């Protein structure tokens, strides 16, 4: 029963994500496309929750939905204004994009279907406690990630400075 419930939830999430990701790239309103992106991001967060990675799901919601999408909306409003329609997509570009997407999707789906994947070991995993996340993030042993962590922090600092420099009015 529980399994059926989670399966139903998964299908709903999957349907939402597929539909909205396609709509996000096809809609002519930029603001709508940002909104659809937000739904897709929520769907991703839901998948993380479903896979019992609650911390990752929380980050996804906080950073993407709370930060990036808001940034998108601001910049869209700054540059486009409300209700302004996008121009039509050129036919040659449409052909290019569709061909790339279709070829890619076909190759990927074919390989997914034809490939024999190893068996799932889902059940072996224990719960991810916050304690473990913290230790792994700041530890320096095997499968521990203090070095990338520090690198990312430097990168973020650089981005802050770069963002200020670029957007500054001269």
């Amino acid at each position, binding site marked *: 029963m529980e399994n059926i419930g989670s399966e139903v939830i998964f299908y709903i999430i999957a349907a939402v994500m597929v539909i909205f990701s396609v709509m996000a790239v096809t809609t002519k309103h930029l603001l709508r496309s940002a909104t659809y992106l937000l739904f897709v991001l929520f769907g991703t967060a839901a998948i993380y929750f479903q896979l019992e990675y609650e911390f990752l799901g929380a980050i996804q919601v906080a950073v993407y939905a709370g930060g990036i999408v808001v940034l998108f909306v601001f910049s869209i409003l700054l540059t486009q204004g409300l209700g302004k329609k996008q121009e039509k997509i050129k036919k040659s*570009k449409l052909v290019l994009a569709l061909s*790339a997407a279709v070829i890619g999707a076909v190759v990927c789906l074919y*390989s997914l279907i034809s490939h024999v994947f190893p068996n799932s070991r889902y059940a072996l995993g224990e719960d991810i406690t916050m304690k473990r996340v913290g230790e792994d993030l700041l530890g320096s042993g095997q499968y521990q990630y203090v070095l990338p962590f520090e690198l990312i922090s430097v990168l973020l600092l650089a981005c802050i400075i770069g963002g200020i420099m670029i957007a500054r009015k001269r």
Partner: protein
Amino acid sequence: MDYSFSILILALPLFMFLTLALGGNKMSQKFAGLLGTAGLLTIAVLSYMVAFQYFGMDRVDGIRPALMPYNFEWLSFTDKLTINLGILLDPISVMMLVVITTVSLMVHIYSMGYMHGERGFQRYYAFLSLFTFSMLGLVVATNIFQMYIFWELVGVSSYLLIGFYYTKPSAVSASKKAFIVTRFADLGFLLGILLLSFYTETFSFDQLTADGGFFLTSTSGATFMGCSVAAWAMALIFMGGAGKSAMFPLHIWLPDAMEGPTPVSALIHAATMVVAGVYLVARLFPVYLSVPEVLELITWVGAITALYAAVVACVQSDIKRVLAFSTISQIAFMIVALGVCTSMIPSEGGLGYMASMFHLFTHAMFKALLFLGAGAVIHAVHSNEMSDMGGLRKYLPITHITFLIACLAIAGIPPFSGFFSKDEILAAAFNKSIFWGVWMTVVAAITAFYMFRLYFGIFWGKEAKHEHTPHESPATMTIPLIILAVITCVAGFIPFGEYITSNGEAYHIHLDMTVAITSVVCAVVAILLATWLFAKPNSKPEKMQAALPRLHKWAYNRFYMDNVYQFVTHRIIFAYISRPIAWFDRHIIDGTMDMFATVTNSVAEKIKGFQSGKLQVYVWIYIVGAMILAAAAIYTLCIK
């Protein structure tokens, strides 16, 4: 005797040149002129001291020894063959020092008036100093290579001064012409030097001239095209001298060189630089004596040039051109005098050497005087054409008198200096053969004729209309004229044979009465003829011109020598040699390079589309490419 101060004679003008060239623009014109003149006055005084000291010295074994106060090694090719730089003092170089510094000093003083207010006045004085330096270096050269170095330096300074008015196209082309023609001649000079040094293994004058036989024995046996190598080397060296001294057929640059300022013409193109060729032959005289066939060539070249230039001078209307051709003719006299020599001993056929040097000395003075006088005339009427002159004797009394003295001197009327020196040349020519004697006497008569045609044309005859009344020049210009006129009057009485002879022994000059009387009579007749024709305005010259139309036309156009050169260079050398070479360069060599460029360019043009700068196209290519690779990988895996 101490001659160590003689280095100052070279160092000072170089220093003056550097000062004026580098700092000239900071100075006022007056200061630059005074500085240049003061520097030259010092150099002149030093030269007089050297001359006084040198000629005051006692003779050693009856001759005057050659001294070398400085001689240091500059470049050494082999153990034996080295290039030295130094100072050689012997009778002719000391005499040349005096001539150069005197004329140069006069020109410096004169230029302060003549060039007053010209643009580039400081540059003018800098170039004059450079020229003086190079010319002094040339005459005191201890070896033939040092001479060559300074020889080129005088060529450069002459080029710079002819092209002084560089905004005038005719001056620019004249300077180029002078440079190219003399460079062409110097090519022969250089080849001659190389031949000479290859066989004798020395550049030094004292070794070359120490014993005429030394040179002959070292080259004996080697022949080329029927002549000995010695003859070839000396003839090639003479070619360099002929180019600088404007001998036929390399004379074409000198009349055009009159585009430069008149004092420059007086200094370089009349008194000093153009006699460098004579000086060169005199310097190597013992060697030339050992190759009589070259001396014969020299005589012929000189004699033809003398006659040619004299005839052309008779019909020119530009006064500076008349003087230029007169210069060519007079230098040819000196060359002939050297050519007719048969031995080193003055009384036995070596008289020509002394005569040549004597004429060089007197000619430098009176020809500088003539040019400076002509400069004063041009200054007064602002024209070079004789038709714009006439009747100027009332307006320019000092110029008139000094010009007349110079004309009498060049015509060979006693007691002016030209008479004595020309008489020695004629005597030397008669010594050799009657033929040369008569030839040169005729040329001397023509000289008297054209000089007095010039004199009457300027100062007598019909008075031309002037824009404003001509006035006498300022004192800076008349004083040099007077000084040179005085020298011209008295220079003939210098006992020249005491100082300079071919073998260094004293020789007492005595006038050969038959020669002297003949030449004076010829000159007087020519002067009277000129007086009859030109002194009063009349139609006789036009009638003569009409009687001999072809001769007049040919002479007026300088016997079409320039046209011959034009034809040879343009129609033959340019058309048949330069143009094919240019074609080869442009089409074969450049073409190969162009082909590389074209191929690269067209390939780049073809592949340019790949780099469109459109990011989305790049992404498409990337993804499709990646997918094709993935598909290929999957396909191969499935096959397995």
